[in-house]
């Protein structure tokens, strides 16, 4: 099997703009399924609203495109209805960290075994390039014409603070590394969070002065450094860049494990 077997070609091409990175991320996720031999009937995609959240429309298995910010609680309902399935949340920086931030941190705390893939393009693509919680300070967007007034979340730090057990970040530019990280997260038992940095050439790219989507795509590599290099690189070399890699991979009892153990205990009582 390859990624192709998980795609619903009848719905392609996607609605994504030329050079949008979302398709690459989708490909990496689907390739991971193939590499891990997941069956289509065992996978369910759940997303919110945004360009990234339109991804689930293109797959050849169950998918639930929900409300802006609410993918995680919907996924919670789906997962506990079908605890044996792989329930995977596809979300964006706006969907998952702005309006949906509360569900994100609570899911991390609650530790239900759902997998979150958050496509961070540092903007609201779908609605026209407004500032998002991950747009860095001082950047120009359609709602910060004089530079952004407030700092961005470092989602890795936020998820750590909320108690997530698996936390990683990759980019669509670093395809093979991304593939690896996604597979690790799928193997992990419990709530996992993977941020996928991806370009929105149409809005974010243009607003940063880069008209050519392919050029903006190539620039992604300047957005990040590898966490393996953390101690090697100088401070200036890391300045305004985000680390990529796996930041945490610690197993703890999942909600389901605790809950269904109680259910068992009650039966014997």
């Amino acid at each position, binding site marked *: 099997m390859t990624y192709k077997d998980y795609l619903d070609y009848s719905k392609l091409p996607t609605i994504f703009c030329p050079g949008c990175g979302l398709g690459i991320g989708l490909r990496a996720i689907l390739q991971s399924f193939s590499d891990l031999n997941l069956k289509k009937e065992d996978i369910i995609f759940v997303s919110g609203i945004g360009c990234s959240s339109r991804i689930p429309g293109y797959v050849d298995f169950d998918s639930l495109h929900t409300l802006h910010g609410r993918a995680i609680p919907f996924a919670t309902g789906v997962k506990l209805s079908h605890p044996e399935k792989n329930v995977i949340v596809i979300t964006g920086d706006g969907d998952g960290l702005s309006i949906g931030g509360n569900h994100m941190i609570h899911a991390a705390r609650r530790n239900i075994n759902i997998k979150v893939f958050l496509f961070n393009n540092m903007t609201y693509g779908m609605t026209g390039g407004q500032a998002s919680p991950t747009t860095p300070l001082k950047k120009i967007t359609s709602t910060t014409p004089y530079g952004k007034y407030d700092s961005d979340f470092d989602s890795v730090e936020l998820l750590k603070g909320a108690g997530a057990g698996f936390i990683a970040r990759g980019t669509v530019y670093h395809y093979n590394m991304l593939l690896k990280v996604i597979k690790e997260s799928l193997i992990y038992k419990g709530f996992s969070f993977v941020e996928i940095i991806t370009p929105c050439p149409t*809005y974010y790219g243009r607003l940063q002065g880069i008209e050519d989507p392919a050029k903006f795509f190539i620039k992604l590599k300047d957005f990040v450094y590898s966490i393996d290099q953390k101690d090697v690189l100088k401070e200036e070399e890391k300045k305004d860049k985000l680390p990529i890699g796996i930041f945490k991979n610690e197993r703890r009892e999942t909600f389901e494990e605790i809950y269904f153990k109680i259910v068992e205990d009650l039966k014997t009582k």
Partner: protein
Amino acid sequence: MRKNFIFTGKGGQGIIFVATLLSQSAIIENLHSVQTQIYTAAQRGDISKSEVIISDEPIDYPKIENADFFISLTKKSLIKFKELIQENTTVLFDNTFEDLNEDFLTKNKIYKLPFTKISLDIFNKNEYTNIISLGFLIKLTDIIKEDSIIKTLEKMKKDFENNKKAFLLGINLYKKLLVEKEA
């Protein structure tokens, strides 16, 4: 007097921009005008469409029943909105890469012109295709003065020189055609 214009093409071709430009310029001339558009992912390369009504009476309701002028920069978009093309509709079409020989257009006055080619030839990019076509249209319709368009362009500031140049290219295109025809 009431004229209905349809502008359509691929997202990113500046369809909305020229429609707005036309409509806004009508206001300068103390005519009434309304511009509307479809709001589907236009920036993303999907089909884009805008309607403009120009009238000497106030416009109560902005819906176009059929077009007096239908400007299409791609074939796909023309076909998508073909129900707006009636017998009396004049069609402008960019034939740089595609030709147009549709059955349903047999009765229409059609101008097939290489707007994109001109833009590429003169500016080395296709960005000015839309304004060139507007220049042609303005001359063709003769409802709005050239000057009003240029004034509006000037107010917008951004890239005024090239826009004006492109606009005049369109006007010249019409003039040339006229000469050819008359010749």
